[in-house]
């Protein structure tokens, strides 16, 4: 399986009437998760999040592709 870079966010059972809504729902959740943390704490949260999501994805080929893109241009 290739890395999906098309919009893919949704919440089961929730109906969206505007295309921007699911992405904005996620982004708000992401920023809220970091609320009131120090920069160091935020970095730790991000690291743990990546590890959790990587395990969920499972396919190392997909992860390799994502890691490569993430590193490009930084």
């Amino acid at each position, binding site marked *: 399986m290739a890395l*999906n*870079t*098309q*919009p*893919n*966010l949704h919440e089961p059972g929730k*109906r969206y*009437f*505007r*295309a*921007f809504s699911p*992405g*904005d729902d*996620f*982004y*708000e959740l*992401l*920023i809220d998760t*970091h609320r009131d*943390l120090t*920069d160091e704490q*935020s*970095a730790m949260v*991000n690291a743990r999040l990546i590890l959790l999501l990587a395990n969920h994805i499972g396919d190392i080929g997909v992860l390799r592709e994502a890691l490569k*893109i993430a590193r490009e*241009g*930084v």
Partner: protein
Amino acid sequence: MLSTYKYPKFAYRRPPELAEGRDRHYPVVVVGAGPVGLTTAIDLAIKGQPVLLLDNDDTVSIGSRGVCYAKRALEILDRLGCGDEMVAKGVSWNVGRTFFRDKEVFNFNLCPEPDHHRPGMINLQQYYLEEYLVRRAEAVGNIDLRWKNNVIAVTPADDRVTLRVETPDGAYTLTTDWLVVADGARSPIRTMLGLDIEGKVFMDRFLIADVVMKADFPTERWFWFDPPFHRNQSVLLHRQADNVFRIDFQLGWQADPEHEKKPENVIPRIKAMLGDDREFELEWVSVYTFQCRRMKDFRHGRVLFVGDAAHQVSPFGARGANSGIQDTDNLVWKLKLVMDGKAPARLLDTYSEERVCAADENLMNSTRSTDFITPKSTVSKTFRNAVLGLAEHYPFARALVNSGRLSVPSFLTASRLNTPDSDSFAGVMVPGAPMDDAPVEAAGGQQWLLQVLGERFQLLYYAPDAGALDAATVRALTGLADGALPVEAIVVAERGRAPAGLATVIDAKGRIRERYDLAPGTAYLARPDQHVAARWRRLDAERVRAAVARATCNA
């Protein structure tokens, strides 16, 4: 400054109370002749309701304020008979471009579907909008518009509201059955009544500059994150009428407004942005901050709050005046039914319920935009810049770029006025949906579905051949016009004409069938504000009447 526009001065006239020396009673009074108060008064007037409109000033909005008027607001202005003027003077646009540093990373089209009457947005200076609304208010009649009439006291009671009004000739007292409050964000009446409005101030400042120039910028919305000419901040550019360009520079909370407003400080910023020696003239400069907040309830007995008086949002998304105009669209048909004794007063509670939901959606979207545009922490800014960096190449990240989610109407899906679906439908025209437009051919020469809809309950009934309806269906459809709450039946067809007494609309391009998922026999009940109240796959007059009763709190 301000060379392109001459402010009108509206004539103050001595009110009859002072001329005759006696108090008067009015069925409905609207306070505030801004965009929202004017649309309220015009909407009441075209429904045949005489209305008194009071304003403490004698001209239109000063300077650069509201700019963007969205498709839904234009459709409402069309229903009020003044959409054409706004669109003719305004600058229509659908495309927005977003830049990060020196690259375009994302663009959007507000109206990607063909076959809609109105564009996604027009840009028009607020003073023009108000001037045209005043002209419309004078033309429709039924409106007693009193300039320089300042409300200084409000006393609500169970059966009436008493107002004390100050004028250049002295003060007078009046009473009214209903008071609509459209006196703006600082709402003196809200304060007089001691009503709370809760929310927060955003810790940021923005510089507004209106400049006149003959520039070849296309008519698009351009938004920059961290551009080379204004590092670490955002900039927004809109073209308005008369070659006036509106530029918003984010300044940060520490900026000194008085310093930033000086032309010698503003002009270099604009020159850096234009990047050349192109000539321009400064028309207006101001610095603003904003709040996001709303009242808990928009109805307080006989006092109804609309627009900024009831709710305020950040400017990213043009959800201020646009939502205020939608408030009046929701309120006025309900108020008129209550005033005519055709619906109980609790119908007005649904104005508050439905528009509180809409206000919360507007607050949520504009707050999310603000948080993306002005990140509040290091990690938030890192995520924001990561999204912008990925957006150039990866579509998922483009969907996350939030430079303002521009005003669109709410789907009132949670409203108790809706009759829930009992049949299955594809698409988004669910009960509570703002109805989609589509091109049509109709006997009155109308060319758009939304020109046919509005002002009353209507039933759209689909039959491929309007001339082939059976007698029982014709009887059922025409019979809907009887009773205290009549329903006008409209046959939507591909061809043919319904028998006399029934309107026919030809679905010229098949868009109604497509957008409303029509099949032969499908019926949609439309509210007077062009929202879906109910829909069925088979016509049943009893169910239509029950749905109208439900939509008017008569059930």
